[in-house]
């Protein structure tokens, strides 16, 4: 053990002597600080606007005055996507998902306003977030720090001396890896601390219930990721004949894993599973809402059957004789009919999205960067799954709102007398204000099994390479 520590300390000393590394390291720390600050600022800005607008819309709903419940259902309300505190760490899909949605009867609207639309094409270079720094830039710093770790010893002949003293090669490797890990820990410690602090401070009014768990997992995730990079780089250095070669190999790997592969995979998924256009998507839904899916059971037929059922059940001749306003019932039935159609088409659309994203998941087996990207977004609550969950909650809320309006109409109004009945604030208050809690980290992560497996496999692979791999080592004096 003693030897190991000597190696660790020596490596750290050497690294600190390197001016370029110091400059890069301080740049990284600064970038993270800027990223966190900017992330937090934009979180604050967006959150305060959303909270304010949300309250306004709630007041609008409550104070809409007395009117027929169905008109209120059309008046509807708005839901805004809450910004999570963890999103200031990883923006994820926030810029590319719509932020607000209008809820009304009969129609499912889609989320509107993708924030990236308010930018020039420069936004496609990406926004500075700490996640970007950690998953894209820090690996490069690691490469710069470690590529000479073996080659230098080899070129200067010290490796020979070390080995001749009877130290196992794997122990030297571990010493180096540990040294770099400690350096990285020191560089990133302010960030990790900040992360934990952030997660404990703003727990109130948050849509994420388990901030601390998520923050801890996030730190763990990036810890594993950076360890992988360190170990891999040291291993490459060990296998390379010269520092130059090690650097070139590592840079090519970085380029491939971080820049090229994610884009290629996403593009391929787009080519394999193509999406319909919104116009066609909507047109099919509208058509099916009249004719039924595949022309089976058109809407009119369905409603006629329902009418007959009600007449038979209550043993009356006309709907006017029913003890409630049948219009409310048929309105709700029409609503549910429409929902079935919508769900059918939405499921199909979601399948396409899922297939596209699955391709990325599978590719993460070959690329730990992709795993980390997905897992990091998942933990920050800015991933596709959380958004989908949010969409589902919103749609459920809409349906409940419309259902309550229709029920009130059935119970209280008279058949054929649309303007004769007006509901008031009592009914509006029955509808609870919309609120959203994300699923727990555990639930979210269940959707990312492939990514988790990929990280585990990569971890084992790297450790195996360092400990167990007995392939040819380059001649010690190169």
């Amino acid at each position: 053990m003693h030897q190991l520590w000597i190696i660790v300390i020596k490596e750290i000393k050497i690294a600190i002597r390197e001016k370029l590394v110091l400059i890069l390291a301080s740049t990284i720390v600064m970038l993270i600080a800027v990223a966190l600050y900017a992330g937090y600022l934009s979180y604050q800005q967006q959150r305060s606007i959303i909270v304010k607008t949300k309250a306004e819309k709630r007041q609008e709903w409550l104070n809409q005055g007395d009117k027929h419940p169905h008109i209120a259902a059309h008046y509807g309300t708005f839901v805004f996507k809450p910004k999570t505190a963890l999103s200031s760490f990883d923006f994820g899909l926030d810029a590319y998902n719509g932020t607000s949605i209008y809820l009304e009867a009969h129609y499912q609207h889609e989320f509107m306003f993708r924030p990236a639309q308010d930018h020039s094409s420069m936004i496609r270079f990406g926004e500075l977030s700490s996640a970007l720094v950690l998953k894209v830039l820090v690996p490069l710093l690691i490469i710069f720090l470690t590529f000479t770790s073996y080659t230098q010893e080899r070129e200067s002949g010290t490796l020979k001396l070390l080995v001749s003293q009877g130290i196992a090669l794997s122990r030297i490797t571990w010493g180096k890896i540990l040294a770099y890990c400690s350096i990285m820990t020191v560089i990133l410690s302010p960030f990790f601390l900040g992360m934990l602090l952030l997660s404990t401070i703003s727990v109130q009014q948050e849509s994420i219930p388990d901030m601390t768990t998520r923050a801890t997992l996030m730190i763990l995730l990036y810890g594993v990721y950076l360890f992988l990079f360190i170990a891999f780089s040291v291993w490459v250095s060990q296998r390379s004949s010269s520092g130059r070669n090690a650097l070139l190999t590592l840079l090519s790997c970085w380029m491939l894993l971080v820049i090229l592969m994610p884009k290629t995979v996403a593009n391929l998924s787009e080519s394999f599973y193509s999406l319909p256009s919104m116009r066609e998507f909507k047109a099919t839904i509208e058509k099916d809402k009249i004719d039924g899916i595949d022309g089976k059971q058109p809407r009119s037929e369905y409603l006629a059957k329902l009418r007959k059922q009600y007449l038979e059940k209550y043993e009356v001749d006309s709907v006017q004789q029913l003890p409630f306003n049948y219009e409310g019932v048929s309105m709700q039935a029409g609503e549910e009919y429409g929902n079935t159609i919508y769900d059918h088409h939405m499921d199909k659309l979601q399948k396409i999205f899922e297939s596209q994203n699955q391709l990325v998941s599978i590719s993460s087996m070959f690329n730990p960067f992709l795993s980390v990207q997905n897992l990091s977004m998942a933990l920050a609550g800015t991933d596709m799954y959380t958004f989908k969950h949010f969409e589902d909650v919103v749609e459920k809320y809409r349906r409940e709102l419309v259902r309550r309006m229709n029920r009130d109409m059935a119970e209280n109004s008279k058949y054929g007398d649309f303007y004769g009945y007006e509901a008031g604030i009592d009914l509006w208050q029955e509808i609870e204000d919309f609120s959203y809690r994300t699923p727990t980290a555990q639930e979210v992560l269940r959707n990312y099994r492939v990514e988790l497996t990929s990280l585990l496999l990569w971890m084992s692979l790297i450790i195996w390479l360092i400990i167990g791999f007995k392939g040819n080592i380059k001649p010690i004096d190169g």
Partner: protein
Amino acid sequence: MDSTTQTLIRYEWKTFVRNRFQLLMLAVTFLFGLYAIYYGKSEINGQRETIKAVQALEQEEFSSYKATFTEEMETLEQEQKHDIASLPAYAWYRHGYHAILPPHDYAALAIGQRDLFRYYYRLTGMSLYYQLFENELANPVNLMVGNLDLSFVLVYLIPLLIIAFCYGLYSFDKENGTLVLLQIQSVSIQKVTLVRLAFYFVLITGLALLISIIGLISSGNPFQIENGAPAFAWLIAVVVYCVFWFGLLFFIVSFRQSSSFNAITAASCWLLLLIVVPAILNVVVTTKYPLSSTTLAGLTRRTGLENEENDEEAKEVILEFLAHKPELKGSDSLFKQNLLAKAYAALTSLKDINSQNLVDQYNAQVAKRNTWTSDFQWLSPAVSMQDVLAHIAETDLVTFMYFQDALAEFHEEITDFYFTRLFWERPILLEDYQAIPVFNISEANGQWTIVTGGLIKISLIAGIVFLLGFINTNRWSKA
């Protein structure tokens, strides 16, 4: 070309062809280029297909209207259809017109924001803002990752090639011990370095131009009038951008540091210009000009009259609207026929009039962001290059904002067409279909100033780094 230069080139060629790794990199970049062209084309062709499908839907809609004027009325459905076709009270909010922003041929090479913005709208006489904000279906994950189009290959990958080929121009000789051999030749090291730099410049810029030409020819005919200038500008941009990177490498090499140092520095520059600078600019602009679409969300609400059976309310709304549109006044039957239809037409138009301000403010903020970022583009020639390419291909924000303005005009034409008929109680006749509004968007010219400006910025920076490198290498012989 003197004989020493020729010799130098000959030897450089020999070293180049012997290095398998370098050849492989060239081949890979070339293949990526081809794939990028293919991918961009398939994306844009997909959009063209959608446009066709959408136009077909419109054609179908309008020919079904026209048909009702000539065919025998037999069923109730036919009569309803004829009402929609001929009565402005139904037609104004049912007839849908498509406003389309067709892709420029070269949009396939620089997709820009084209996957993010709507490029077609179906507009009726209803409130414009009710129809304006719906998004196109897209997978947000793929939007975030972005497109691997030719502009990506040129902006991201070509510089890497340049780095990989040039970072060791001087240091390799030093490290391999051949430097001394070079020093005893009659030709100066500065010249040797410059010739080699020129050699790789021709090689890599040649490759970039080759891929570009393949892209330009396969995505559209560059000899067509509307493609000629863009194609030319594209090629110029490629050359200028390559000059910049070679200049930068020359500057880095001129410090005579080790290969590893050069490689690290060059890679850091790449990182700085392609990732760090734009990422910082983006996050700064987001926080400096905060924008929340929540303010616009309210516009998408469909509002109705409080009580459709209350004539007074309807009249009030109509009068309020007519104050803005006096030319629609004057019909004797203003309040006698189609009161409800008129009231709704008035209501939705009033909504547009009243929200105009809000939308303008929002768009002004977006424009401010855009100006701010373009003011800082000189910080990164890569950002300028991307911007130049997107403007050549007409896929940048400016084009879409221009499209939005055109949409507003078109919407006004539509409402004028129907509202004059609605308020003056004139039915729509078959011959009126000859004169229905047609969307057209005139050629935006603003982009050429941006393109030229961007190119000048890149050239200037290229000139500076090259000059600095030159000054530095001048000192070599003295040392």
